[in-house]
C-alpha cells in the first residue's frame, strides 16, 4: 500500500507512537527476510467458480477423504488410524500440514507460526489425555486422577512479563501503579470469575468447559452471548483501565478481537473454562519451542501414508454412491471417489467447494467470519540487553502494554537455553479497523517488518542490531471470530450436521479457534464415519 512511513506506523501502532518513532531516523541496518507460507493466491481461484473435468484415468477410489490438514483433519486421521481404518486420504492445500499450528525448523530450536500452547486438559477430556499419553508428554496421574504432564513440557517460569513506561514487570496484569480502586475491581473480577467457575446448571454441567460442546445451554449463561465482553465489564461496574486492558489483551490474544468486539460469553469462557474449581490456578500450559507443531508432527508421522500435500481441492461433489473429490495436483486435475468425506476446511469455504451447497444451503457459511493476523519470526543473534539491572527478565510471553500487538514469545525459553541466539515470534491481530484482511495483503514484507521492529524497539533499542532475519506470515483467515450473537445463535447445531455424505470438522464449529475444539470435531467426524460403516 502506498503509505509513507509515518502513515504506516500510525495505522498499525497508533499516532502518538508513530510520531515519536518517525522523529528518529530508521537505522541503516535493516534485517533481511521474506513473506512466507499461506497460498492466498491459489485459494482465491476457488471463487472464480470454474468447472473441473477430470480425465478418466485420473480417478481413484478410497473409502474416505479428509479435506484439510489442520488440527481437525489431522485429528480425524489419527482417530481413523487408531481404529484400524486405513483406506483414506488427507488432502492439504499447503506444502505442509498443520494449519494454524504449523511451525518452522531451526537451530538451536524450532519456532511456531501461530498456535503455541495447549492448556493441560481435565481428566474428563479422555481422548485428548490419551493423545498426550501416546506422545509421552505425561507422567501418569495425580491422586485426584488428573493428568500429570512432564515438567519439561509445562511452561517454564518466568512465564510472562509486561512492558510499561520503560520497564518490564512480572505477570500480565499490570500491578505496578494500581490504585486502591483498581485492586478492588481486580479482586472483584476474580470473584466473579470464581462464581462462574463454580456454577452448575440443573443437569450438573459447567457454564464454561472444554470442549465447548459440554457447556451448559442454560439461558442464564448463554444470554451472555448477546452483549460484548466490554459491555459486560461496564454493566458489572468494572471501570478500571488496567482491568479493561487485561481483558482486552485476553480476547485479542485468544480470539483476535478487541473486548468490545468479543461476545461476553466467550470472554468469560477464556477466564473460566481452564480453571477446575475456585481457588485453584488455571490449568498450566503445555508448550515446546515449535509450539503446537509438536502435535502436527505426531499426527503427520502416524498418517504419513495417507497425507497428500499441495493438493488444492477444487470441488467436492455429493453423488449417489458417496462423494467425488476433485483436486488440483500441480497443474493436473485428479479425482477421488469415496464413500464419505470429512470437510476439515474453514466453514466459509464450503459454498465455493461443495457443489450444490449454495442451492440448498443447510447453514449460512458466510456467518463464519474470520479475522486476519500477521506473525513475524525474528531470528536474533543474541538476547536484547535489559535496560535496567532490576528489569524483570526475558520470559516466555512478553507483552507491550502500550502496543496493539500481542508482543512476542521466546522460542528457546522452554528448552532452558538462556544465552545466545534465539527466535522471537511476534503476533499482530488486525482487529483495530474494519477490513483488516484486505489491508494486510496490501502491505509488503518491508512495511510489516518495519511495523514489527519499530514496535519492539520501544522496549528493545538494540532490536535492529540483534535481528539477523525476519520472516513474516500473513494469515488472511486466521481464526473464527466469536463476536456477539454467533456461538449461541443456533448456527453451530446446523453446521455440525452432515451434508449428504460430507461431515464437517473444524474448530469453526465451536466458534472459537482452539486446539481442543479442532481435536474434538476431528474425532467426532471420524467417529461418524466409523459408525456409518458398522
Amino acid at each position: 500500500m502506498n503509505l509513507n512511513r509515518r502513515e504506516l506506523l500510525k495505522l498499525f501502532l497508533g499516532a502518538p507512537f508513530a510520531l515519536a518513532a518517525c522523529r528518529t531516523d530508521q537505522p541503516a541496518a535493516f534485517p533481511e527476510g521474506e513473506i512466507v507460507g499461506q497460498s492466498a493466491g491459489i485459494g482465491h481461484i476457488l471463487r472464480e467458480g470454474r468447472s473441473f473435468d477430470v480425465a478418466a484415468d485420473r480417478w481413484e477410489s478410497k473409502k474416505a477423504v479428509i479435506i484439510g490438514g489442520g488440527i481437525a483433519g489431522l485429528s480425524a486421521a489419527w482417530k481413523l488410524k487408531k481404529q484400524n481404518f486405513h483406506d483414506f486420504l488427507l488432502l492439504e492445500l499447503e506444502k505442509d500440514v498443520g494449519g494454524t499450528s504449523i511451525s518452522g525448523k531451526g537451530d538451536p530450536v524450532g519456532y511456531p507460526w501461530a498456535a503455541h500452547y495447549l492448556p493441560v486438559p481435565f481428566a474428563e477430556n479422555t481422548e485428548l489425555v490419551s493423545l498426550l499419553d501416546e506422545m509421552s508428554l505425561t507422567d501418569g496421574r495425580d491422586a485426584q486422577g488428573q493428568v500429570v504432564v512432564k515438567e519439561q513440557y509445562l511452561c517454564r517460569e518466568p512465564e510472562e512479563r509486561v512492558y510499561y513506561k520503560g520497564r518490564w514487570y512480572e505477570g500480565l496484569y499490570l500491578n505496578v501503579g494500581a490504585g486502591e480502586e483498581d485492586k478492588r475491581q481486580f479482586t472483584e473480577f476474580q470473584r466473579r470469575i470464581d462464581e462462574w467457575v463454580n456454577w452448575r446448571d440443573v443437569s450438573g454441567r459447567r457454564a464454561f468447559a472444554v470442549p465447548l460442546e459440554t457447556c451448559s445451554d442454560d439461558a442464564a449463561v448463554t444470554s451472555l452471548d448477546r452483549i460484548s465482553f466490554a459491555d459486560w465489564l461496564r454493566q458489572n461496574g468494572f471501570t478500571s483501565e488496567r482491568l479493561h486492558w487485561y481483558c482486552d489483551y485476553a480476547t485479542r490474544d485468544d480470539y483476535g478481537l478487541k473486548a468490545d468486539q468479543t461476545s461476553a460469553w466467550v470472554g468469560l469462557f477464556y477466564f473460566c473454562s481452564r480453571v477446575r474449581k475456585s481457588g485453584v490456578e488455571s490449568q498450566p500450559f503445555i508448550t515446546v519451542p515449535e509450539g503446537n507443531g509438536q502435535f502436527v508432527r505426531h499426527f503427520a508421522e502416524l498418517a504419513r501414508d495417507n497425507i497428500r500435500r499441495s493438493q488444492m481441492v477444487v470441488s467436492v461433489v455429493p453423488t449417489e454412491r458417496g462423494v467425488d473429490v476433485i483436486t488440483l495436483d500441480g497443474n493436473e486435475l485428479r479425482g477421488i471417489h469415496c464413500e464419505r468425506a470429512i470437510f476439515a476446511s474453514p466453514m466459509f469455504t464450503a459454498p465455493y467447494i461443495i457443489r450444490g451447497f449454495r442451492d440448498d444451503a443447510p447453514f449460512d457459511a458466510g456467518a463464519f467470519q474470520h479475522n486476519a493476523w500477521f506473525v513475524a519470526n525474528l531470528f536474533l543473534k543474541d538476547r536484547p540487553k535489559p535496560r535496567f539491572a532490576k528489569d524483570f527478565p526475558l520470559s516466555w510471553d512478553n507483552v507491550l502494554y502500550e502496543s496493539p500487538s500481542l508482543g512476542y514469545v521466546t522460542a528457546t525459553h522452554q528448552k532452558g537455553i538462556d544465552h545466545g541466539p534465539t527466535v522471537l515470534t511476534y503476533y499482530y491481530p488486525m482487529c483495530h479497523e474494519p477490513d483488516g484482511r484486505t489491508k494486510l495483503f496490501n502491505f509488503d514484507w518491508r512495511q510489516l517488518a518495519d511495523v514489527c521492529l519499530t514496535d519492539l524497539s520501544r522496549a528493545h533499542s538494540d532490536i535492529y542490531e540483534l535481528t539477523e532475519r525476519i520472516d513474516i506470515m500473513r494469515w488472511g483467515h486466521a481464526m473464527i471470530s466469536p463476536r456477539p450473537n454467533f456461538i449461541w445463535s443456533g448456527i453451530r447445531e446446523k453446521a455440525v450436521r452432515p451434508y449428504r455424505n460430507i461431515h464437517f470438522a473444524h474448530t469453526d464449529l465451536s466458534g472459537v479457534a482452539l486446539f481442543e475444539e479442532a481435536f474434538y470435531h476431528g474425532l467426532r467426524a471420524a467417529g461418524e464415519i466409523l459408525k456409518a460403516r458398522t
Partner: protein
Amino acid sequence: MKRAPLLFLNVFVIATCGLIYELLAGTLSSYVLGDSVTQFSLIIGIYLFAMGVGSWLSRFIDKHVAEKFIDIELAVAVIGGFSAPLLFLTFANLSYFSVVLYTVVFIIGMLVGLEIPLLMRILQDEMDFKDLVSRVLAFDYIGALAASLLFPIFFVPRLGLTRTSLIFGMLNAAVGIWGTWLLLPLLKRNVTIMRVKGFVILALLVIAFIKADRLTTLAEDSLFVDNIIYAKSSAYQRIVVTKGKTGYALFLNGNLQFNSFDEYRYHEALVHPAFAAFSGDAKRVLVLGGGDGLALREIEKYKSVEFIQLVDLDPDMTKVSSAVPALGELNKHSLNDPRVHVTNADAFVWLDNVPAEPFDIAIVDFPDPNNFALGKLYTTRFYNLLKQKLKPDSSVVIQTTSPLIARNSFWCVMNTLEASGYTVKPYQTTVPSFGIWGYALAKLQPFETPRSPPAGIEMRFLNNETFASLFEFPADTSRPNEELEINRLDNQALVRYYEAEWRRFEQ
C-alpha cells in the same frame, strides 16, 4: 579593583575542583576496570587534551564572557558533581561503561579548560598581563596541589568517591552563584535567572549528598573494598578479581565466589564427601560450574580419577586462571591437567542434549539461584537430567547456599533432590568469607553417612573430627517446620525463596 583578589580565590577553587574530578575518574576507572597504570594514564591524557580543546574553543566566545563563565561554572557543577554517582550507576547497569567514562572525562576537561582563559579575559582590563598570567597560573597550580594532597588523605577515606564528587560539584556551583554578585557590573543579561539556576543545581547536589548512602548502596558498596587486578565483562557476566590484605577474591556480577584466604575450606568440603561416599575407585568425574578450577584441584588429588568433564557456561571464566597468574597458582594449574576436558555450555542444555558415559562422581558448583536462568539448575528437571549421567552407586555433591541466611532455600533444594529420587545427606561447614555454608551429598540409592574423609589425601581443613561434624545441624539451620515447595521449572519456587531471604540483608 577589589574584585581581582576574590577572583583569584575563584581560580584556586576551580583548579582544585578540576583536578579532583580528574582524580575521581582515574580512581573509579582503576577500581572497576582494573590496571590502574593504564587507567590513570588514559584519564590524565584525555582530561588534559580536553582542557586544551576547551582553551582553544574559548576564542570563539566573543560576547557576554562573564555570563558564559558563570554558565560553564554551573555546567561543571552538574557534570563534575554528579560524575562519580553517574559512573557507578553506569557500571552497575551498562556494558559500555568505558564509553560513558571517557565521554564524561572529556566533557569535564573541556569545560574546565574553558574556565581559566575566560577568567583571564575578564580580568585583563583590570591588571597588567604580566601580573595576570603569573597570578592566575600560580593559583591554578596551588589549587592542583591542594587537590592532590586532600584527595587521598582526606576525601577518599573520609567521604568516599560519591560524596567527594558531590561536594566539589557544590563548590563549583557556589563559585558560579557567587560570580553573579562578583561580576555583577559585567553581567548584561537576566541575573535572576542565573541565580535561580545556580541555587537549583546547588539544591540538587545537596539532596544527592544527603541521599548518597542510597546511591552508593546501589552501586559502590556492592563493589569492592580491595584493589581490582582483573576485570572483564564476558558474554554472560562481569568477572572481577581483587587483591587485598587477606588474599585474592573473585566476584561474578559483584557476588563473591571465593577468597583465597579460606577457599580451601569451601572446596575441600565440596569435593571430598562425594569421594568418601563412593565405594571403590572413582574414575570418571563430572564438574558442573566450577570454572575457577579450585574444585578440580581437589579432585586431581585422587590418582584413581582418569577423566574429568568440566562444564562451565563462560569461556572467560575457564580462562581466568591463566589470565591471572595468582589464580593459576591457587588452583595448581588444575585446568591444564590432561585428565580435564573443558566444555563451555549451559549445564542444563548440555545435560539435555549431549550424550556422555555415566560418571562415578558429580560435583555441582553453580552460583546461588538469584535469577531464573540459575534457578533452572536447581529444579527436579535438572536433577532428573543429571540422573541420566549417573550410575546407580554414583555420588553427587551440590553447593546449596547458606542454610543460616537462606534456610528455606537450602531445604527447598534438599526436598527437590528427594522429589527427584535421590537419597540426600545435607551438610554444612563454616567458610569465614561466606559464613555458614551448605551442601547436599546425594546418591540414587540409600547410603550411610560417611564418617571420615578418604584416606591418604592431603587436606588443610578436613580431618576425622571436622568431617564427622559436617553432617550435624544446629537448631537454627535444621529443616524448618513449614511446608516448602519443590523447585520445578514451571514454578521456580527456589528463586522466590532465595530472593526473599537474601533481600533481608540488603540495605
